[in-house]
Every structure is written in structure tokens, then in C-alpha cells.
């Protein structure tokens, strides 16, 4: 089986977060309702545990609710794009591997899993843009991403591959989307 795909973007989650900060609050960084800022290692000064993956943590006064809402909607769009990109990565990865002379894209369960994730993305795109919906969408996209990583085997656990970006967006969702609108 030969897959026909568009070139993959290589911009990682930290840079995508920085871009979202800039679009949401030009010249500033958006702090969650709990006063947490997540951005790239280039945007924040203090190294921490996530530095190895290119992301840092900061603390600041929580951003206003309207700013947080716009950032949350943008974050969900970043998560959708990362999961969508991982579909392309998975198709390439599996197409380049074989078992019993067949591409690993051939088994029905692999095809079904890829199709499920694609349908999840389409459905999530249509959800209402409210705090509760955004969090539920984040949970569904997290599950979809995990399904894809399961197809990648050990390569999905590399810190320089899509598994790292999906981990970082899960952490970002935990900071900015979980409990959004409750405070």
C-alpha cells in the first residue's frame, strides 16, 4: 500500500503554544485561572522538568476570562491539528514497516483505528465553543491521540517524535482547559 499525503509540518507543540500566546495576547503570555503559564523554553526563563521537551512553566496573575476563553479555543485547535498531524505520521510510519510481506497499514484493525481518529477530529470540530464542551473535546482528542500512539509502538514513546507533542498538549489542556469557566 502506498500512501499519498501532504508534507508534515515539523513545528512542535512548544512553538505552536508560543504562537497561540502571541495571537491571543500580543506581546504577552496567557496565564491560566490558576495562574500558570506554559510556553516554550525560549519564552520563559526558568528551566524545569519539561525543559527536556522544550516547554517551561511560569506563574503570573490569571488572565481575564475573555482572554482565557480565546486561548482555550485556540488550544483545542492546536490539539486537533497535532492529532491530525499524527494521523499522517502514523500512515507514513506504518506504510514503511512490514509484517509477513504486507505493509502494516493493511490490517483492518489498523485501518479502523485511523478512521476512528479521523472521525473524532471531524466531530470535535463541530462541538459548541463553550468551556464544558472544550474540556470534553480535549478528553476525546486525548483518547484519539493515545489510540494513534498505540499504532506507533515504541516510536510513539520517543521524546523527539509525535508522542512528545501529544504529551505536551495533554499537559497544556490539563492547565488551561480542565475546570475552565468554573472559577
Amino acid at each position, binding site marked *: 500500500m502506498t500512501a499519498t499525503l501532504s508534507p508534515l509540518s515539523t513545528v512542535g507543540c512548544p512553538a505552536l503554544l508560543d504562537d497561540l500566546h502571541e495571537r491571543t495576547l500580543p506581546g504577552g503570555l496567557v496565564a491560566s485561572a490558576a495562574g500558570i503559564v506554559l510556553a516554550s523554553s525560549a519564552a520563559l526563563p526558568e528551566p524545569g522538568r519539561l525543559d527536556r521537551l522544550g516547554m517551561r512553566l511560569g506563574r503570573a496573575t490569571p488572565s481575564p476570562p475573555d482572554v482565557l476563553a480565546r486561548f482555550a479555543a485556540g488550544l483545542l485547535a492546536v490539539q486537533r491539528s497535532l492529532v491530525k498531524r499524527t494521523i499522517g505520521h502514523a500512515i507514513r510510519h506504518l506504510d514503511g514497516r512490514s509484517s509477513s510481506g504486507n505493509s502494516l497499514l493493511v490490517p483492518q484493525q489498523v485501518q479502523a483505528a485511523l478512521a476512528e481518529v479521523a472521525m473524532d477530529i471531524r466531530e470535535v470540530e463541530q462541538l459548541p465553543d463553550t468551556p464544558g464542551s472544550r474540556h470534553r473535546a480535549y478528553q476525546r482528542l486525548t483518547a484519539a491521540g493515545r489510540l494513534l500512539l498505540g499504532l506507533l509502538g515504541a516510536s510513539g514513546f520517543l521524546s523527539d517524535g509525535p*508522542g512528545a507533542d501529544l504529551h505536551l498538549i495533554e*499537559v497544556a489542556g490539563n492547565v488551561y482547559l480542565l475546570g475552565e469557566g468554573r472559577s
Partner: protein
Amino acid sequence: MIERLRVLDRYCREMAPQLREVGAALDRDPDSVGDFVHLPAFDVLHQVFMPAEYRNPGDLPPGADPAGSSCLEWAVALEAISYGDPGVILANAGPGLARDVVAALGDSRQQDWFFNRLNECPTWTFFALTEPNKGSAAMELETKLTPDGDDWLLNGEKRYVGNGARGQIGVVFCRRAAGPWGIEAVLVDTADPGFSGELLPMLGLRGARISRLRFDDVRIPADRILGRERPPSRRGLYGALRALLRFRPGLAAMVLGIVTAVAEYVLEQRPALPAADRDRLDGILDRATALRRLVHEVAADIDRDEVNSHRIGAVKMRAARLGEDATILAAELLGPASLVEHPWLEKAYRDVRGFEFMEGTANIHRLSVFQGLVRNDFFPVSGHATRA
């Protein structure tokens, strides 16, 4: 659970809390494992993994008396230690997954060569099966073993090998001839010319030092082919499958240790969980209880030489999924920013993902369960499978 295992379980659980700090240190710097090998947990791992005839005297409590080759014993010890940190087990020096291949296939001289080395000083070992583009499909491996005078030459590449680049000795699976019986298991000394290893950057379980290995004309003396006097059907591939099947219940048990730790952590942090949330957490604990029984069941079956690969794979696969479900739920129940405010939880959240692919992904095990159904060999006959 029999008394000997209860004693072992209690002893391991008492030492588990101090392993949290070790796990955090290994996550920051995987090479720091040498700073911790004096801890009692590492002695326990030595006692339960080393064959009795090669074991150094240890400090286990009276009554624990490990057999050194019991899957059930491993499951009990590995779950209890993983309650502290699973990375400690994977970072540990010792025979690891190679143990079963050497013990099952090796003649007495080969076993001496391998196990005596481990007793001289902390020695890391590896089990090199997985190859680029092939995954762990053992029958399709391409690393070549070709004759060269009285010796053999090893050429090829392995990927995702735990402790590969750190190890001093290991077992490498390679192809001497076409077909499933053309696969051999050879003992490799990483000091030999032609061996090279490179660490791969991993998201979690960093102490395992998962690596890529290359073999360029590595010379293998004929007496390093494991089980060379045995028929081809009872060496290479047989040894690989045997080791994988025997280790899978232990992997599942490790996840159960993390799951229990995560659930207890949530209850410590939020003792007054709302009823609906408590119910969801109880659902996780219910699944852990059920899987623990299944882990002990398949491990006891293995110890009695009743090996059902479908059931063993199913237990490992479901445990891996439970680990992910438990950590995702914990992150939610501990509220916004829990993954940055609770560093231990964030580490557990990353680490459990590693169990999905170790020794076969979920899809591989699902297919195996299906094969078990077709063969009417998945569900135990009533009264057949035993409980520990």
C-alpha cells in the same frame, strides 16, 4: 497468596516509598542509577531474578526464600516495588529479560559465563530482539549470523533495546538460516569490536536507557551460540518466545503497582472526593483487583508449565490500558494544573504509556486473544486455572 509470597510482598512494600525519590532522580538523569544500587530494593531484585545456584547471599527476611525462577514471585515483587517506582526495576543491573533465555537454553559453561559476570560487579544486560521496520515480529528478524572459520560474525541493527547502550553483556537474536528454526540466540560482550550502541530519547521510563544497537562483524565464538547442542526448534526462537511469555505477567504487575499508587495518591490529596468521582476511582481499583487475580493466575500457570500465550498477552494489554486510564483520571480528579503541580503524577502519567508497547502492542495481543477464541483456548476450562 501463600505465606512465602506474603512475606516478600510486605518486605517490598515497606521499601517502596523510598523509591519515589530514586525514580525522580532517574527521570532527571538515567545514569544516576549507580548511586542507588546499594538500596535494599536492588537486593530484592537480585534475589528474585537470579537463579538460586548463582545468587549472592542477600538480606531478605526469614520466610521469603525466593525460588529465583517463579513468575508468581516476580509478579508479587515487581508490583510492590513499582508502587514506589517502576523505573527502578527497568534501570536495574542484573539478568533482566535475558535471564530466561540463558537459563533455558544455555549449557552449564554458558550459564557460568553469563551469571558469574553479574556477580562480579553491577552489570547491565540486554535482550535484543526488535529490529527497525520489523517491530518485534521475531520470525522476520534480519540480523545475520554468518560462519567465519570456527567462529561466526554478527551483522545488523536492533532498536528499542532496554539497557542496550549501557549493557556489558546481552543476548542478541539473529538469523543463521531461513525459516523459524534458522533463528539463533547468541551471547554478546559489548566490549567486542564491531558493537556500538546509542541511547534513544524516550518520553518516560528513562532509567531503562532504551537504545539502538549496531553489530558490524562482531565475532561470535561458536560456544556463545546458546543451546547449540539442542535441536533448532528448541533454541533461538523458542528461547525468545519463552522469555517474553514469562516476563509479561511481571510487566502487568508493574502497571498495577503504579495504578494502586496513583489511586492512593488521589485519595491522600483529595480525601473528600465527591461520590461520583469516588465511584470512578473505585472503578479503577476494581479493575486493578480483577487484573491482579488474572496476573497471579497466569503467572501460577506458567510456574506449572501451563503456558497460554493468549491469556498472558491479554493480561499485559489490559493492565497497560488500565495504567493510562488511571493516570488520566487522576489528573482530572486532582484538578486544573495537576500535571504541573504534582510532578510525581506527571511522571507516572508519562511512564505508564511505556507499557503499551513493551512486549507487544495492544493490537498484537487482541489478535492473539482472537486466535485463542478460534482455537477454543482462551477461556480456562472450569476448575483448570488456579489462583495463587
